[in-house]
């Protein structure tokens, strides 16, 4: 009886390993396949897609890098991601302090609307958002023209500007971040704020000296949860900029889809360049990312 039970347990264990192994292999093999094929020549790839390269070549990367203007794309991605992430943290800790520590009748409806907003996806709103942004620019343009300024051309404040992209990125990250910050700041003892008030500190100095430093853990969570999403964002940047000099990595990668598909080597190299920064980011911050995702703070 006992040995029979042990046998069943061993079969169960074996099956569990098989299932885990199979799913992990299916998950990671395509990514590895992509990486090693980026080192093959086109001729070799067309004959054999499965084996490792006979000779590892780097020319695909050299070619893809120049063709794809990756230095500019990566530069834009870095700026948009970092500025937006810092903006999200700053603005949501500020709001979280207000919601959590300053009693006000407006908190229930306004904070409630932020929590509802977690369920809204910006993708479903991209059409009205685009119309809003371009109409605002037209009104601003008309205003300037009426005053006799910039009469030669249209003025762009929101559409096709870094400012507009960052504004929208920060806004789209706010519902989740405001929620996380408010709940976190609620756990900071109110007595700390009150003591500082009695000592005559202004709310802004309390924010700067107490709340912001104490919010470092939640700020870290917000950064690691938002950076991959911002870096990989496609739907909005696709419609909000038309200038080549403002495009980001995902837009640049998409140019390698289809039209250059005969040049497999460069296409593979471009895809690897596209995923490498986030793989490094994941490697460095896996613990923090895992902790953040555990809270269910990422939209699928």
């Amino acid at each position, binding site marked *: 009886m006992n040995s029979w039970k042990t046998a069943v347990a061993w079969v169960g264990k074996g099956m569990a390993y098989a299932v885990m192994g199979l799913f992990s292999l299916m998950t990671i093999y395509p990514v590895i396949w992509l990486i090693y094929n980026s080192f093959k020549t086109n001729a070799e790839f067309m004959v054999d*897609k499965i084996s490792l390269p006979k000779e590892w070549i780097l020319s695909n990367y050299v070619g893809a890098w120049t063709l794809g203007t990756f230095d500019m794309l990566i530069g834009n991605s870095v700026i948009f991601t970092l500025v937006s992430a810092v903006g999200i943290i700053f603005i949501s800790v500020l*709001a979280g302090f207000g919601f959590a520590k300053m009693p006000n009748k407006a908190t229930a409806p306004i904070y409630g609307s932020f929590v509802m*907003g977690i369920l809204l996806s910006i993708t479903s709103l991209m059409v009205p958002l685009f119309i809003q942004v371009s109409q605002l620019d037209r009104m601003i343009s008309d205003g300037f023209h009426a005053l006799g300024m910039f009469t030669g051309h249209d003025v762009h404040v929101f559409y096709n500007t870094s400012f507009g992209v960052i504004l929208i990125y920060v806004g789209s990250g706010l519902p989740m971040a405001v929620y996380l910050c408010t709940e976190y700041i609620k756990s900071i003892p109110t007595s700390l704020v009150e003591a500082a008030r009695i000592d005559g500190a202004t709310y802004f100095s309390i924010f700067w000296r107490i709340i912001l430093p104490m919010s470092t853990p939640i700020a870290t969570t917000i950064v690691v949860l938002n950076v991959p999403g911002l870096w990989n964002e496609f739907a909005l940047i696709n419609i909000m900029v038309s200038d080549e000099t403002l495009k980001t990595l995902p837009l640049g990668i*998409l140019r390698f889809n289809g039209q250059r598909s005969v040049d497999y080597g460069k296409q593979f190299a471009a895809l690897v360049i596209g995923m490498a920064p986030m793989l490094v980011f994941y490697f460095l911050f896996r613990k923090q990312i895992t902790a953040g995702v*555990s809270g269910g703070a990422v939209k*699928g």
Partner: protein
Amino acid sequence: MARAVRNRAETNWAYWSFITPAFVLYLFVFGFPIILSFVLSVSNYGGGKMFGGDPWSLVGLGEYFKLANDSNFWLALKNNIYIVLISVLGQIPLAFVLAYIIFRKIVRWGEGWQAILYVPAIISVIVLGIMWKMIFASNGLLADIINAMDTQTFLTSLNGLLANGLNVTDDFVTKLLAISDPRALTGFTNPLADIKDLILSNGYTTQNLEVFRSDMVNLLAPKWTPDFLSKQDIAMIPILFVTLWVWTGMYIIMFHANMQKIDTAIIEAARIDGASELQVLSHVIVPNLSGVLANAAILCIAGSLNTFALIWAMTAGGPMNITQVLAIYMFQNAFIGVPNFPLANAISVFIVLFSFILIGLTLLVERRYGGRE
């Protein structure tokens, strides 16, 4: 007293100055666009200057009736519902079982498996979409792997037939035809006689069997060409697979973290009382995590109704709209060809309302059948 009043005024002032940046941006990105999408969906706005351009007015719910009679819209909705279903009924149960295996330490290196399975979620879906497009292509990796395996099977059978050297008899050719791809034989009027002639006329001998083998592989071995995009019912399979592939790891992490909060004494007690791992899973773990499961389902629904970039990279909704989804249909109506902003905004309103309805249903189910937390 005066001090208390001044303090309250200052608190009030600080409150508004602290929440205003967030609230204004929130309204800018979510609030106004929602209102605008509804207003434009019941209008005849043509895309010009909204104020002081061509006049436009509110004309009623006509665009919604147009959607109701639009076969492309229904196809997009159907495909989108497939994605919701594969997410809610595929990702979540699969992730739950895998998380449970890790949680119960049925396998070692739990954290390592988890780390690997999360990798796709960190990579741009544009990169992943193009990658999977190349894998599922008619001459892609999947076809090559399957054909390599089929060729191997064919060669093994062929070597069995050649165990005693090459003897081109009717019996040999009949057996050869039996292991061949039927589609390879359709070109011959009388396969038995024709193939036999072919083999004899090429002068293969037992000395050059290698040539014979490779010629037979080229001529007769089964060859599979995937053409998922040729038919409506199967076109979504690669997209559904990739959806499952990208996001399951995220839910594993979510479920595993919450399983660790369950009191292990309950599980051990159940095990000692003779409950199997499966019984523990269904009677202890699932009821304890029903809230987390509902949260995961809500995230799944919200995410999968808005799926855009992945499909944009893989098929862009084509060919002939057969992989169309709501967000891409909305995008095409607004930005490709002659814009139809009222229709695009009607789809936008529909996506928002539909996701809230599905999320509401999920919450109802959880409240009705969910366990205590």
